[in-house]
């Protein structure tokens, strides 16, 4: 026996050491947040709070009762961690990227930041955790009783003790104090609890060493060798017949679910995670830890069963074996191991749950009913901290209440499994939420409510054995004697292990609703958006909410909220670093609003943060276009429909183009008609003269010869005019169709001009027009056909000659070269062309202001076509008197003989 005082003293000393570790951890983390406190080893050790007193004491008890069944509790998590790439990696990334504060926060955020879901998950977590905390209190209390009560030999009578509620109460108080001091110092949950995690890591090491020491002592000191253990083992224990059945699979599954869904596991694995390397290491180190813990369970159980008196409580073998052998130091170490495993679980659970309670239960209500103090920034923060502290006390004493009510009658393992099955209800929403894009808020809510209800009905309430809410008659015969409603044989599922059937019914209905409800409900745009963020976390984390949300809020209002929740100092820093273009602006940008919401979410959870920010947002729209774009990327069907939409738009565009082309064709058709009628007119005019004069000549043989001669000349001239007209039409047609290849060469445009002047000289002198060439002749060359350019010049010059009515008619040709542009100007001093006619004269058959003397009215049209085909322009320049036509052509200023 160990004196009570000594045990209490050792406990207090141990707690003092933990305090010191936690304190040092906090201080160190403030100086160097990325130091060894963030190392994968510490992270892994903190995850080992999975091994509570249920493991430390209960695993041996389970092995003593059911052989290898205890292994399932460690196989499930091993599978989850070894296969971390499949699920844990995504879960941890989502938690880290979106500053998740708890499992309730994650589920509520995933389904559109819904406060109802957050509250529901929190309540469920509270109810589920209470038995688990009760289990720790029970383990702590009975181990304390055993180690202080025993005197030498352990008898069956004194190993099953009446529960000592007084000890349990004071233990609960002590746990509250420790959790409050180290768990709720700062309200930023995402600012990791380095101190607590450090202390938890120390406790993980202590419980590991304690179990290892007891195991080694049992194997080598009591049994002599590992082989001896198995020789002494009862046959039914190590040679299992019916171990690997439905119950085995169910337990593996539940354990695997629990290592993710338990609020405390979520806290250490997801919330406290700071990098992927941590989880990478934990993926092998944590299973190794579990393996080593399990190594000595069977030997201890075998030894306890064979060495201790019949009827000894196997849940306490770890403690009673050394006590029985008067190994006080080993017993004390074993007690400390159990103490460590129980306290670390309660501390982390209460911290995790206090966050959930304050963020998802108290804050939303306080905000709705304006209970939260709004007056001063500090009041708000201390309100939140107060809520968290009160929550810790509440949770621990909820566990105490369960302990009190259930009478501590059950074996440790049974209590733990009730909790496991309860938290497994989160699994469909959690896994589905991360991997199934179409999962909806309605499905999650329906599944959780139904699963939780069934769990309560088939497993939780019956666990009180009629002492709480559900009378014993209901458990035995069903409500109102309805047989198929019996909680432990629902719908006639008789003869199945109660845990298996409870797990089956609750999770089956839960998952079925989760899958089916989305068929009948549409997610809100926000939920759809969150779904994309979470499911595609590896693809889209760079996109922030701001691209989708269009919100308007006053900076002053945002500041006020940030002050209240973050504290003045942090809020100031946030607004100062977030630059905010224009401090003078009163309206906050989308970026700022999102940033503030994100920072608030890290403190009070996504749903509450949203409520807070929404209270000052005056206008909120979700950009449908953005949303559609995002959705299109991921959703095949949407992509397909977008494709269809695009196609139909294309068809519309094509139709419009066709209509336009049709219009053009009609236009061209009209032009063609017009052209035909013009041609016919132009042909009819000379034909008229020809016919009329030939009529005269035929009908009047007596005509004097002079007249006869004159009329014949007219006929001849008009025939020539007709021929020219036809030539012109054909030329123009060729030019317009561009279907005749020109010989292309580099030539001096001046040579074409000289050629044109030369061929017009006869016409000019006949008409008495002075044809002159002015200015320098720039040396350059252009690309094209020399003869065609000459033709264009001839048309311009002959127009200047033919239509010149001046008394002293002059046609002047001048050239220049400027910046790679060759310019030739043909100017006359005849009548100037009115503004309104300037463009029209280039249209074929257009009549100038002058009565036409000769020509078909195609000259300018042809010239323009030629020049344009040479890449240049023909235009009429502004001039006060006469007409001045300018041809511009792209040219190089190298010598035309440069490379010829």
């Amino acid at each position, binding site marked *: 026996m160990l004196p009570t005082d000594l045990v209490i003293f050792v406990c207090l000393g141990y707690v003092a050491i933990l305090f010191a570790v936690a304190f040092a951890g906090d201080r160190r983390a403030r100086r160097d947040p990325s130091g060894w406190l963030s190392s994968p080893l510490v992270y892994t050790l903190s995850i080992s709070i999975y091994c509570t007193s249920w493991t430390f004491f209960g695993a041996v008890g389970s092995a003593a009762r059911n052989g290898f069944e205890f292994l399932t509790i460690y196989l499930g998590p091993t599978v989850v961690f070894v296969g971390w790439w499949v699920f844990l990696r995504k879960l941890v990334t989502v938690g880290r990227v979106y500053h998740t504060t708890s499992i309730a926060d994650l589920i509520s955020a995933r389904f559109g930041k819904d406060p109802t879901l957050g509250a529901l998950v929190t309540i469920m977590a509270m109810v589920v955790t209470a038995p688990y905390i009760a289990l720790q209190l029970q383990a702590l209390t009975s181990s304390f009783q055993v180690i202080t009560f025993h005197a030498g030999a352990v008898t069956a009578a004194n190993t099953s003790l009446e529960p000592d509620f007084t000890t349990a109460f004071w233990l609960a108080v002590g746990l509250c104090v420790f959790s409050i001091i180290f768990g709720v110092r700062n309200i930023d949950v995402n600012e990791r609890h380095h101190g607590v995690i450090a202390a938890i890591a120390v406790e993980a090491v202590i419980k590991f060493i304690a179990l290892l020491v007891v195991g080694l002592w049992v194997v080598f000191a009591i049994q002599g060798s590992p082989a001896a253990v198995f020789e002494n083992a009862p046959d039914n224990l190590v040679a299992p017949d019916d171990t690997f059945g439905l119950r085995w699979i169910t337990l593996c599954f539940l354990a695997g679910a629990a290592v993710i869904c338990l609020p405390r596991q979520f806290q250490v694995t997801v919330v406290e995670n700071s990098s992927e390397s941590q989880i990478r290491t934990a993926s092998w180190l944590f299973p190794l830890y579990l393996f080593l813990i399990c190594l000595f369970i069977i030997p201890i159980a075998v030894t306890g069963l064979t060495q201790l008196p019949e009827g000894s409580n196997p849940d306490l073998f770890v403690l009673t074996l050394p006590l029985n052998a008067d190994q006080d130091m080993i017993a004390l170490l074993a007690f400390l191991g159990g103490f460590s495993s129980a306290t670390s679980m309660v501390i982390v659970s209460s911290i995790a749950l206090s966050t959930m309670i304050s963020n998802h239960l108290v804050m939303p209500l306080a905000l709705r009913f304006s209970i939260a103090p709004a007056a001063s920034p500090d009041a708000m923060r201390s309100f939140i901290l107060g809520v968290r502290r009160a929550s810790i006390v509440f949770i621990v004493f909820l566990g105490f209440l369960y302990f009190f009510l259930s009478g501590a009658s059950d074996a440790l393992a049974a209590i733990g499994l009730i909790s496991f099955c309860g938290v497994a209800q989160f699994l469909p929403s959690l896994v589905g939420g991360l991997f199934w894009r179409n999962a909806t808020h309605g499905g999650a809510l329906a599944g959780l409510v139904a699963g939780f209800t069934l769990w309560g009905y088939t497993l939780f309430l019956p666990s009180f054995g009629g002492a709480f809410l559900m009378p014993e008659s209901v458990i035995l015969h069903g409500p109102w004697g309805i047989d198929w409603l019996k909680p432990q044989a629902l719908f006639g599922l008789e003869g199945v292990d109660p845990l298996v059937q409870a797990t089956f019914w609750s999770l089956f209905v839960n998952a079925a609703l989760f899958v089916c409800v989305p068929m009948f409900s549409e997610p809100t745009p926000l939920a759809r958006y969150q779904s994309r963020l979470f499911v595609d976390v590896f693809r889209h984390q760079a996109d922030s909410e701001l691209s989708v949300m269009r919100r308007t809020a006053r900076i002053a209002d945002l500041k006020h909220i940030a002050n209240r929740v973050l504290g003045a100092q942090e809020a100031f820093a946030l607004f100062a670093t977030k630059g905010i273009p224009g401090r003078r602006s009163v309206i906050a940008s989308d970026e700022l609003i999102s940033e503030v919401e994100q920072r608030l979410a890290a403190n009070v959870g996504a749903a509450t943060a949203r409520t807070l920010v929404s209270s000052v947002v005056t206008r909120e729209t979700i950009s449908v276009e953005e949303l559609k774009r995002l959705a299109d990327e991921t959703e095949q069907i949407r992509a397909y429909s977008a494709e269809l939409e695009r196609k139909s738009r294309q068809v519309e565009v094509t139709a419009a183009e066709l209509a336009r082309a049709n219009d053009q064709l009609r236009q061209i058709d009209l032009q063609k008609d017009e052209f035909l009628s013009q041609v016919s007119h132009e042909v*009819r005019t000379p034909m*008229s003269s020809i016919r009329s004069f030939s*009529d*005269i000549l035929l009908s009047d043989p007596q005509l004097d010869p002079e007249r006869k001669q004159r009329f014949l000349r*007219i006929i001849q*001239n008009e025939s020539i005019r007709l021929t020219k007209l036809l030539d012109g039409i054909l030329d123009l047609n060729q030019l317009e169709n561009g279907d005749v290849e020109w010989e292309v060469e580099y030539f001096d445009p001046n040579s074409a001009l000289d050629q044109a002047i030369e061929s017009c000289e006869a016409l000019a002198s006949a008409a008495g027009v002075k044809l002159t060439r002015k200015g320098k002749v720039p040396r350059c060359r252009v690309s094209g056909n020399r003869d065609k350019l000459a033709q264009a010049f001839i048309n311009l010059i002959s127009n200047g000659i033919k239509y010149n009515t001046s008394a002293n008619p002059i046609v002047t040709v001048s050239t220049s070269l400027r910046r790679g542009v060759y310019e030739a100007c043909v100017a006359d001093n005849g009548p100037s062309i009115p503004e309104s006619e300037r463009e029209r004269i280039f249209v074929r058959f257009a009549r100038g202001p*002058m009565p036409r*003397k000769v020509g078909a009215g195609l000259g300018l049209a042809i010239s323009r076509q030629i020049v344009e085909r040479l890449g240049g322009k023909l235009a009429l320049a502004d001039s006060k008197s006469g007409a001045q036509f300018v041809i511009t052509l792209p040219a190089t200023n190298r010598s035309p003989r440069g490379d010829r």
Partner: protein
Amino acid sequence: MSSNRILVVEDEPNIVESLRFILERVNYDVESVSNGLTALEQMRKQAFSAVVLDIMLPGMNGLDVLRTMREDSRLSKLPVIVLTAKGQAQDRKAAEETGANAFITKPYSNAEVVKQVEKFARR
């Protein structure tokens, strides 16, 4: 109006010459102008017994000349023989609706022109 003067409104010198020849041959006095405005001016200045009017004229076209004539009380009764290269049905219709007495398309038969002038010109 006992004048036997005919006004030829035509911008093609060769056609004017041919019209002048065939009309003078049957003892009409022929005045010719090459655009619409001058034509109206001439008509108001002196009496004509008929007008031979081209449609495609520089500036004011023949139909406008005709319309102006028909709105002018002094010229409204003056016979007009439209002589045009625009020989399509709608051109003829437009000319007749505006008030042309005869419509001859180019190329024309000399006999037809003389016949129409004789028909409408009151000597």
